[in-house]
């Protein structure tokens, strides 16, 4: 309809896994519940744009936004915005009733779960698998070994060091590049309050080394904002001499300052990236103290700003940079954005881009935003990593989704078949 109004029609005869019908009122209840900030819903950043939902009938409703957001539909497609029965919209109820192609047959917490085909799914004729047995392997090597020894047919989150081994053994390794990593800073207290030092880091990072170390080369280096086109993708480069100049300009001509690099022991690739970053920083004169507690302590320290620099993974949940950039630069405490960062000009440029109705105005606003990012360095991107799935050659029909939606590929197992 117009850029603020979206009209939706539901298929006839939709039901949940337990047979109760899925109606427009359920959609309204679910989306509005997610939009309530007190519920801490993952889809909040997207659904908060909803001003109102008007129900026309059980299968027809209209959503009105309070401001233009061209990525709104993408937010709705995210699994965190799935529609569930109203009696599950509460923190206390276990949400096992859904409306997707597979229903939850059994769940052994921490060990695995079993999914079986839901015949009442509106596209049930296309669903080719009858049953999926999922086992949880928290250790990456154990996961790979399970595939190699035939215990399982399909694994996700393949560790990068095993890509070649699996391919050599006759398995299909299927991946796409999407998720990206950056160095982020404590800009409130400490040496990185000075944008020159942040810029120095952006020049000091040897991204190729980092990709080789953490991802065995299965990734692409980033020198700017991923997916932003020529104006935003070349903000920085690997230039340690320039980094040293910047350090001297900031008053550190003879080495120093001393900085605390916070990493974590849970996600090995983030730790390996951080180790590479440490070497790069020390090469231009920083003195780096390295700590790596486990993930919960790490996130607590990251949110509280108990670091000078850290390495974090990021993924936009929509493709449009104007949609996902705000989360990384707005003044809200989050573990994977720079602590204390706030830049009103940048916020304004991004808001303008998001609300712009014609492509030219959007691009102009985005270009302004990219320039600001290049100079003020709210984050220094390092690389994008490949995320891969691996499976036996008896499996076919699996598609890997592109870009930032890559991790959700596993949610789309319609059309997958297995022989033998």
């Amino acid at each position, binding site marked *: 309809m117009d850029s603020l109004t979206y009209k939706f029609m539901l298929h006839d005869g939709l039901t949940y896994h337990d047979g109760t019908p899925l109606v427009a009122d359920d959609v309204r209840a679910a989306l509005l519940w997610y939009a309530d900030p007190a519920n801490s819903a993952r889809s909040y950043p997207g659904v908060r744009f909803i001003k109102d939902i008007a129900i026309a009938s059980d299968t027809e409703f209209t959503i009105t936004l309070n401001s233009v957001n061209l990525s709104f539909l993408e937010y709705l497609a995210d699994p965190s915005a799935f529609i569930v029965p109203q009696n599950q919209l509460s923190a206390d109820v276990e949400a096992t009733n859904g409306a997707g192609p597979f229903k939850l047959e059994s769940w052994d917490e921490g060990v695995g779960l079993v999914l079986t085909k839901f015949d009442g799914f509106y596209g049930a004729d296309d669903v080719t698998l009858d049953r999926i047995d999922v086992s949880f392997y928290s250790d990456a090597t154990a996961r790979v070994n399970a595939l190699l020894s035939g215990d399982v047919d399909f694994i996700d989150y393949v560790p990068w060091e095993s890509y070649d081994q699996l391919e050599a053994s006759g398995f299909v390794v299927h991946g796409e590049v999407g998720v990206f990593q950056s160095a982020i800073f404590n800009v409130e207290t400490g040496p990185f309050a000075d944008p020159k030092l942040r810029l120095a880091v952006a020049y000091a990072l040897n991204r190729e080394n980092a990709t080789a170390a953490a991802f065995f080369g299965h990734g692409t280096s980033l020198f700017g904002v991923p997916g932003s086109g020529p104006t935003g993708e070349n903000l920085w480069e690997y230039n340690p001499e320039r980094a040293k100049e910047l350090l001297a300009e900031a008053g550190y001509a003879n080495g120093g300052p001393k900085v605390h690099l916070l990493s974590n022991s849970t996600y090995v690739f983030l730790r390996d990236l951080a180790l590479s970053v440490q070497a790069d920083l020390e090469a231009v004169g920083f003195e780096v103290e390295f700590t790596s507690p486990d993930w919960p302590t790490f996130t607590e320290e990251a949110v509280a700003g108990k670091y000078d620099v850290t390495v974090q993974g990021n993924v936009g949940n929509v493709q449009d940079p104007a949609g996902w950039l705000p989360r990384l630069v707005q003044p809200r405490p989050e*573990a994977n954005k720079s602590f204390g960062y706030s830049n009103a000009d940048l916020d304004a440029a991004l808001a303008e881009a998001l609300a712009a109705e014609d492509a030219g105005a959007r691009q102009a606003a985005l270009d302004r935003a990219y320039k600001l990012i290049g100079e003020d360095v709210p984050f220094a991107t390092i690389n994008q990593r490949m995320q891969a799935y691996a499976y036996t050659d008896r499996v076919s029909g699996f598609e890997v989704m592109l870009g930032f939606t890559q991790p959700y590929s596993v949610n789309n197992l319609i059309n997958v078949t297995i022989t033998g």
Partner: protein
Amino acid sequence: MVSFLIRRIATAIVLAWVVLTLIFFAIHTVPGDPAYQLAGGDSGFTEEGLQQIRESLGLDRPLGEQYANYLLGVLGGDLGESFATGQPVAQSILRRLPATLQLIAAAAVLAIAAGIPFGAWAGRRRGMADALMTSVTSVALAVPVYVVGALAVLLFSVTWRLLPAGGLTPFAEDPMGFLRGLLLPAVTLSLAFSAVVARMTRTAVIETSDRDWVRTATSFGLTRRRVFNRYVLRNSMNPVVTVVGLEIGSFLGASVIIERVFNYPGISTLLIDGVSARDYPVVQGVVIVIAVLFILINLVVDILYGILDPRARIR
């Protein structure tokens, strides 16, 4: 005898309470906010949302009050509910505990079945046999369990595809599959223990063989072999019993690594996952259950020892 029993049981109960208290206060002071972990970590949370979560978990109450509530619950058999899943902790533990117990029992059986004959043989034959046993057991004790596990998986699962690389099939579903899945982890775990059992048996056999009454028996014309099988072996078992009790502790430590390497769904994995998620009730529950198990085993060993050797009851 009765006073001995009562004293030991009373000590065991006090011990269990001390462990409970220590673990409660320890886990509550560890950094890393469980509310933050539950709120999804990196997106969309607000301070009100976090506070709501804390309230629903009872984390905003004063620590002493939380402790009292927990203690009362435990006495009534309620170990609380997992922060992450909401499932009763007792239930989760009961689901995973059998797997770990089966692993430890299998390893113990294997170790005793392999260790005693080996040690007895070395103790009886001496000379070359003894030297061989000492060398083999030394190596078995020195190789770290993670090295053995990794090699075992590599050889038997990945290269030769003889046994599964991990996981566990329930016995009811598929007895053969269950045994095959249990074999590698149990053998790996039992390696070091069989070495200990073998050594203990050897020493006990040697010492018993030198006793006067053994020589007397032989001088009466009983064959050396008969003497050995009937008398020496049986009387050497006391120290072995003690060692079993003591070593169960290291079993649990090694089983943490075993469960990681073989993706074996036991209680150690539940514990580590609980700590990683700061799921306090799960961590407390598992530690208490494990500690109580230990204490029980030590108690049984103590009592057995008291039965076997009346002199031990005096202290």
